[in-house]
């Protein structure tokens, strides 16, 4: 396949789609599937068949549309009339959608027949209006299993452009100019990393996409891989061209079998069409991608551990330097980026660095995907421009806290991050601002907590996670996390003294300073940030032996009390 074949394929598919009066897009991503989306899709297909509407109505099974807690979600695209987005669609409602939209001309939303009217989401709903979809621009609109759907929306055009019109150096420069920073957590400038690998000497180089998504409570990467797999593959191929690699690996978390399967299938389809493999798009560029499946270890998200895991070993980090850019997989220069980072590449090449740099703040460009969860009315997956305030995310997009409860804190960055209390709701969400507050951007987990969440218990939850996940290679982390967890346990069961709180703070600093890898270095963050903003809760547990949120049962007595008694 060459560039004009690609364009012809896109045209053919567009014509095919435009032949339908009405396209019914049914979310088939995991959250909606567990709300019964399969039955809805089947009912819609049956209704199309029964009504002999095959020529006018098309049912498409798509990826995530965003408001997962309102699933099963269905979007109806009607020619010349626009889009109708429905929530909580049952099989029966699905049938009615078919008969209504296939026949009736546009009527104002208020005049829709029941039960469609109550399920229709207003077109100006802030949940959608405040988002900006760059990486997720196809998610929920295409069938992730069909290459044609992706190509019809401009897929692989960026790769074709890069291969024909740009040198590897120019590609790196474009990414540098865009200001894109890594979406895996640390926010290292992506272009600089690419240029480093490009300049590194080596007969063989590798590109790795990190799809390990370790943050427990987040599913951005999963959704991207499941809803638009070709987007990630195209980004990886462009990276391969830019750094001079001919082999890529995509490391998928073991808990995500559907993502792995879709990626495998997408790779095979792209190879068959000459968009991956050898002589891509009739150029001299060869690039193969293999899927590697993780086996359930959080630390394997760390880059050196991940590479050990790809090489079939225990996933234990190694000291850096040497950085992967110099010596990575099998000692060769290796580029490793998060899958969401790769998801940004094709739009940047296609629309230019300036376009990308116009989104966001001075130092944080583009958008970020967050998995909005916890105590907020609409939970789901959102993509917002950098610099949006937390308040807009929680109250406009998320629809506020249910049951009229008060917002207490937002947790970002998972076990490596921290909490942001209510007084900072107006902080812009970007790398620097979140860091200044003692949290991090992280990979995109965003958990909202209300008055009924105990912040000490939250700290204990994350410490337990780090303790379980410590790989055990270095002592500060292996032993320190256990000790810190024990101290937190004492605080929450009522047996702690104020001295324990001091010890806890000291340990936090020690573990942070002396651990080998990011897991240990950041494990104290949730504790430090909750102590910073919610010291009163710690003190209430210790001095008054009372949990202000009513979560902990403090039934034990401090040792010192009965010594003095």
């Amino acid at each position, binding site marked *: 396949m060459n560039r004009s074949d690609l364009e012809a394929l896109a045209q053919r598919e567009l014509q095919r789609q435009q032949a339908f009066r009405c396209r019914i897009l049914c979310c088939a991503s*995991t*959250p909606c*599937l*567990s*709300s019964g989306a399969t039955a809805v899709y089947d009912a819609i297909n049956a209704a199309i068949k029964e009504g002999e509407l095959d020529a006018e109505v098309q049912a498409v099974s798509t990826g995530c549309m965003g*408001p*997962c*807690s309102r*699933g099963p979600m269905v979007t109806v695209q009607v020619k010349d009339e626009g889009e109708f987005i429905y929530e909580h669609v049952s099989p029966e409602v699905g049938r009615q959608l078919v008969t209504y939209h296939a026949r009736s001309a546009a009527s104002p939303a208020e005049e829709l027949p029941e039960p469609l009217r109550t399920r229709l989401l207003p077109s100006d709903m802030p949940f959608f209006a405040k988002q900006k979809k760059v990486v997720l621009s196809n998610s929920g609109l295409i069938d992730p299993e069909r290459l044609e759907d992706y190509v019809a929306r401009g897929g692989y055009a960026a790769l074709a452009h890069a291969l024909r019109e740009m040198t590897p150096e120019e590609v790196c420069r474009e990414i540098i100019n865009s200001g894109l920073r890594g979406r895996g957590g640390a926010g290292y400038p992506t272009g600089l990393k690419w240029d480093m690998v490009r300049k590194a000497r080596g007969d063989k180089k590798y590109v790795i996409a990190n799809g390990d*998504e*370790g*943050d*427990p*409570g*987040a*599913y951005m990467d*999963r*959704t991207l891989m499941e809803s638009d797999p070709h987007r990630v593959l195209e980004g990886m191929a462009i990276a391969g061209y830019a750094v001079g690699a001919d082999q890529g690996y995509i490391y998928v978390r*073991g*808990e*995500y*079998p559907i993502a*792995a*399967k879709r990626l*495998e299938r997408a790779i095979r389809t792209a190879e068959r069409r000459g968009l991956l493999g050898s002589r891509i798009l009739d150029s001299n560029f060869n690039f193969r991608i293999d*899927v*590697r*499946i*993780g*086996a*359930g*270890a*959080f630390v394997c998200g760390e880059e050196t551990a991940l590479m050990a*895991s*790809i*090489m*079939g*070993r*225990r*996933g*234990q980090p190694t000291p850096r330097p040497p950085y992967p850019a110099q010596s990575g997989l099998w000692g060769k220069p290796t580029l490793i980026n998060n899958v969401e980072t790769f998801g940004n590449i094709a739009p940047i090449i296609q629309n230019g660095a300036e376009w990308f740099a116009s989104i966001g703040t001075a130092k944080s460009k583009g958008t970020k995907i967050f*998995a909005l*969860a*916890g*105590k907020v009315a609409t*939970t*789901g*997956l959102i993509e917002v421009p950098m610099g949006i305030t937390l308040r807009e995310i929680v109250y406009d997009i998320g629809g506020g806290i249910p049951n009229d409860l008060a917002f207490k804190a937002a*947790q970002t960055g*998972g076990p490596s991050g921290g909490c942001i209390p209510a007084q900072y709701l107006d902080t812009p969400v970007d790398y620097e601002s979140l860091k200044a507050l003692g949290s991090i951007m992280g990979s995109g*987990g965003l*958990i909202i*907590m209300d008055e009924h*969440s105990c912040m000490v218990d939250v700290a204990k*939850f*994350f410490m337990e*996670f780090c303790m379980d996940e410590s*790989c055990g290679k270095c002592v500060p982390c292996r032993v320190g996390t256990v000790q810190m967890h024990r101290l937190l346990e004492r605080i929450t069961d009522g047996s702690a003294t104020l001295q324990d709180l001091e010890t806890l703070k000291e340990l936090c600093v020690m573990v942070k300073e002396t651990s080998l890898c990011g897991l240990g270095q950041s494990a104290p963050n949730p504790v430090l940030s909750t102590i910073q903003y919610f010291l009163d809760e710690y003190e209430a547990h210790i001095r008054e032996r009372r949990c202000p949120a009513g979560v902990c049962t403090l039934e034990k007595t401090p040792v010192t009390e009965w010594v003095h008694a």
Partner: protein
Amino acid sequence: MSVKTSPPPRARPQAAREHPSGDPRFNLIDRTLKRFSYQQDALIEVLHTAQETFGFLSDDLLIYVARQLKLPLSWVYGVATFYHFFTLKPQGKHTCIVCMGTACYVKRAAEIVAALQQAFHVEPGGTTADGLLSLSTARCLGSCGLAPVLVLDGEVLGRETPESTLERVRQLLLTERSEAAPSANGDAVHVTNGGIHEPI
């Protein structure tokens, strides 16, 4: 049992490396070994196949894999025990995995685990004495929008409560008990601790 009366084992046309037990499931492992040309780097892939096929990694399996890849057994054991996904114990006939990721934790998933623990006398990571139910916890199943989430025999269920979960598991075990006598053999080809894992 008399050895004399049994016919001599017939020499079957078989691959040179076939497992001496003749268990055909080893062929699946051999296929993965071949796909990766017996490279030692493919250890994790081979263990994935082994666990998918047998349900858990028995000592025998680990020894087999170590021999085939010419790796020290300690190396194979070290890798198998490092990753949470691999289990060295047989699993129950049914599995219930409760998500204990942050979103589910905030929505009180711990109460679901406690309820199951109490009702069925099983610890997380363990299996009931009759071999019917394995309970385990996971760190985020990637459906946080529907927290609390659990996976019961491969089916992802959202917005659960302790009551609804107990009811589901009870129903499941009830049909089981009325159908057949429980078999505690752990080698059923079944979802393992990753739960939603299925062969690619």
